[in-house]
């Protein structure tokens, strides 16, 4: 008995901590005791069982005490309990990483407790539902929720979605277990992906990649990202040599069959294969063979399968036009999209996954040590990213689906970079920050999603708003973010000498991110300011705003009696600068009435007519120009330091932003 206790002391301590979480949660009266107050202790008990005789690490006591202190102080702020609850979840991530580092072949055990929490807290999203409906329609396996197909924008018809049948077919066996079985096969696929990454790098790195963003965002969810990771990693792990070219070609083909988005990755795999081939006579024939193979597959699909896989979905030449436009007609916009894909607070890679910075710095070392493998990873990843931006344009992020999913296929590259930068102290710090983000997302599941409206769910949870955003900021501000990133990379590369500068840069970056210019953005106005007014469009899905000519921000609609905006802290003599649009609606501002009429956007002459069709822009709110209205306030407008803005009569008025200026020059 004594031996058992001595050998398993750390496991008992972890189990004890699980029970402690359960008790403290109740003792402190923290919210959600029936859900989070049970599943987090349960996850710790699972971890204790999986821990065996391993040590728990130096972080355990500070983490346990932080949770205890956090639970004690949770009433200080209405959302503080979420941060207190995130501490033991971050502890589980640390545990997973530490045991997989010390003990090989423990990858699956290391990710299981967090995977359990992630799956149980992540709601089934729209993409998963569509996959399940398609799966049910193809396989004939009926479930309670997914048996009936629903038409969605972009689908071919009600039964056939815009997804190819490959992934729905793969996940079909899971549906035999009913609705709850939807994620059975995706979980197996994700775990296989982690095992392959462990083979490519080491178990600890694979666990980091699985439990931190961007991989964590869809880890175990019924989405294609982790299957792409598995296929890509398999391609990299295959031995070098002529006979394996066919296998890599097959992998590329499967990737395209899986999703059109992976065309860039597939092209990159083939280009890397060609680049890695030793010079020999007749080498040039290989790409011709691949092209012929691809053409043959397309012909077979067209005439044997009636275009079921490729032609019905990808036979749209409009996509090529769009890419042409993105490259040649708006190259600057495309470059900015690439920049925002890295830095936007809602969905940018470095914001949700700071550890990638360390991985990028490690790639310099990795390239020197493993040049061939670097080529096989770097070429496909960079082509995938470029293709994503050029093909999707401003909708590169794929929101509102889970944040970060677009970067998942690049995980093998980041994993290899991280393995080379692992021992640096700065790397550990960035991993801890990333672990905190994953833990917050588990405890506050709403943070898994964003809506491309400039308001990040994690920042909102912190009670702050970032003034830096792809839908709000001028793209020139990206230069500051780029400069800071280059500095971090330089410091991490020269970590020995410049280690402490990491903190200076991180503080600067965080400070800049949390800065918000004074004024009121429509989406961020609190209920103390806005009463009754709705945001337009009425649903938050960014797809509604993808094709707007103006800003893609949501607007505040004032159209009915009772809707009002109450701005406090104003004085007679101040000037309101209100960005708004309208068709002649009358707005009441204090005692003044102003007519809001702004013109329709003028289409470029190129778009006005195509053939015999003359195009006219519909008179929708988003098609009216936003103009700044300056309103000087006098003593009749201001009552007790407050001015009321409300709709008086006529068509609705749409507002984007209000600024208050005290400068007399504006009057």
């Amino acid at each position: 008995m004594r031996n058992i206790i001595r050998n398993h002391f750390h496991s008992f301590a972890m189990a004890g901590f699980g029970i402690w979480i359960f008790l403290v949660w109740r003792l402190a009266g923290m919210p959600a005791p029936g859900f989070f107050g049970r599943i987090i202790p349960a996850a710790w008990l699972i971890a204790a069982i999986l821990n065996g005789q391993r040590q728990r690490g130096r972080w355990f006591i500070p983490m346990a005490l932080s949770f205890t202190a956090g639970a004690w102080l949770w009433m200080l702020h209405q959302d503080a309990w979420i941060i207190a609850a995130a501490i033991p979840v971050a502890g589980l991530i640390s545990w997973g990483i530490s045991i997989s580092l010390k003990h090989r072949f423990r990858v699956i055990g290391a990710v299981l407790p967090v995977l359990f929490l992630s799956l149980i807290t992540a709601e089934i999203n729209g993409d998963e539902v569509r996959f399940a409906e398609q799966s049910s329609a193809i396989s004939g396996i009926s479930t309670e929720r997914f048996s009936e197909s629903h038409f969605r924008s972009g689908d071919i018809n009600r039964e056939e979605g815009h997804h190819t049948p490959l992934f729905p077919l793969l996940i079909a066996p899971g549906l035999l277990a009913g609705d709850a079985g939807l994620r059975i096969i995706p979980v197996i696929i994700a775990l296989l992906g982690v095992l392959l990454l462990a083979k490519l790098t080491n178990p600890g790195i694979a666990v980091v990649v699985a439990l931190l963003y961007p991989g964590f965002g869809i880890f175990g969810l019924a989405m294609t990202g982790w299957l792409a990771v598995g296929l890509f990693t398999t391609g990299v792990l295959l031995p070098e040599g002529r006979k394996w070219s066919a296998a890599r070609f097959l992998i590329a083909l499967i990737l395209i069959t899986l999703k059109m988005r992976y065309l860039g990755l597939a092209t990159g795999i083939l280009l890397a294969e060609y680049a890695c081939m030793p010079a020999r006579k007749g080498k040039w024939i290989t790409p011709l063979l691949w092209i012929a193979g691809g053409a043959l597959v397309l012909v077979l699909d067209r005439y044997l399968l009636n275009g079921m896989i490729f032609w019905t979905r990808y036979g749209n030449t409009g996509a090529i036009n769009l890419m042409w436009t993105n490259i040649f007609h708006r190259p600057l916009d495309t470059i900015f999209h690439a920049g925002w894909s890295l830095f936007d607070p809602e969905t940018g890679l470095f914001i949700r996954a700071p550890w990638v910075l360390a991985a990028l710095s490690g790639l310099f070392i990795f390239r020197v040590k493993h040049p061939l493998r670097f080529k096989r990873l770097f070429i496909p990843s960079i082509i995938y990213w470029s293709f994503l931006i050029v093909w999707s344009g401003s909708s590169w992020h794929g929101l509102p689906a889970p944040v970060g999913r677009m970067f998942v296929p690049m995980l093998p590259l980041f994993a290899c970079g991280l393995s080379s930068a692992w021992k640096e102290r700065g790397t550990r710090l960035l991993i801890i920050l990333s672990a905190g983000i994953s833990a917050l997302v588990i405890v506050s599941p709403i943070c898994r999603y964003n809506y491309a409206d400039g308001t990040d769910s994690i920042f909102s949870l912190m009670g702050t708003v970032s003034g830096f955003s792809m839908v709000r900021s001028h793209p020139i501000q990206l230069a500051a973010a780029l400069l800071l990133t280059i500095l971090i990379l330089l410091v991490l590369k020269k970590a020995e000498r410049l280690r402490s500068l990491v903190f200076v840069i991180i503080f600067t970056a965080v400070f800049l991110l949390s800065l918000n210019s004074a004024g009121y953005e429509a989406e961020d106005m609190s209920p103390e300011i806005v009463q009754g007014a709705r945001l337009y469009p009425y649903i938050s899905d960014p797809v509604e705003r993808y094709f707007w000519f103006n800003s893609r921000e949501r607007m505040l609609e004032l159209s009915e009696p009772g809707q009002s905006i109450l701005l406090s802290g104003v004085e007679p003599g101040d000037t309101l600068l209100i960005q708004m649009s309208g068709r002649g609606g009358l707005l009441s501002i204090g005692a003044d009435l102003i007519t809001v009429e702004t013109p329709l956007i003028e289409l470029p002459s190129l778009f006005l007519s195509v053939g015999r069709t003359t195009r006219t822009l519909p008179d929708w709110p988003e098609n009216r120009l936003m103009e700044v209205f300056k309103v000087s306030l006098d003593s009749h407008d201001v009552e007790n330091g407050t001015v009321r803005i409300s709709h008086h009569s006529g068509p609705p008025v749409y507002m984007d932003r209000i600024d208050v200026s005290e400068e007399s020059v504006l009057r």
Partner: protein
Amino acid sequence: MKTIESSKVAVLLAGYTAWAAANLFRGFSPASIPLIVLFTLLGISLSTSMFPLIFACSLIGLISPVLMPWAVLVSGLLACATGSAMKIRITGFIAVASTLWLIPVSSSIPLIVIAAASALIGKKHLRCFLIPAGFIISVFFTGLPGSLITEPVIAGSTIAAGALSYDIPEVNTSRQEVLLPAPFEGTWVVWIAIEAGGVRDSIPMMAISLGEDMLFLQSGTDTLSFTMIPGDTLAITLVRKFKPFNHSVIHAVAGGERL
């Protein structure tokens, strides 16, 4: 050794600069003074196992002024409990004390006592037992620390085609009152469906008030309706204070129509 010392200085300077920048750009607030102590703690705890947690708390404090006191208190208590060097524990105590001095919270005495005792006790194991024991005892005798003034939260509202609906956040012991203001124009019939629970008795747990009328309700479900005119505010107030093993919570949905 020299490298570690210079790193500490760099971290200290980085923290102080961030504090100065925050005050310069957002306007000076006396409530941000404990953040200086937090950055000092960050600098001197470099190369200890508690550093990452204190760093995370520093970032939370820098990003979010509303969560800043929470971040400083957790860091301070953590330093008091696990700091091996006396200077770390004393700085932790100063962080706790300065926060409680500038931002008074209820039941702050146990916090000060535990922080002071931990800072002065040299034995690590004793401290590790002292904190949880102090936690349990103080919860039973004095309750949990909470804000002295709990500001009521105003519920968001939307009016569409003459129908009014409110978006009411959860009411619990950290958010004890929610206000539903009437639209500034017209007379409205407002209904509210309430579900309250998390207590183990039948003593009234919430008050619904409109003007001078007030109604006390027990846990369970209720639906009420009111007539509201401009200037009226319907208040949902949790009247229960914190009690161990109770999770008092009120969920409500409300809507209305113009008369």
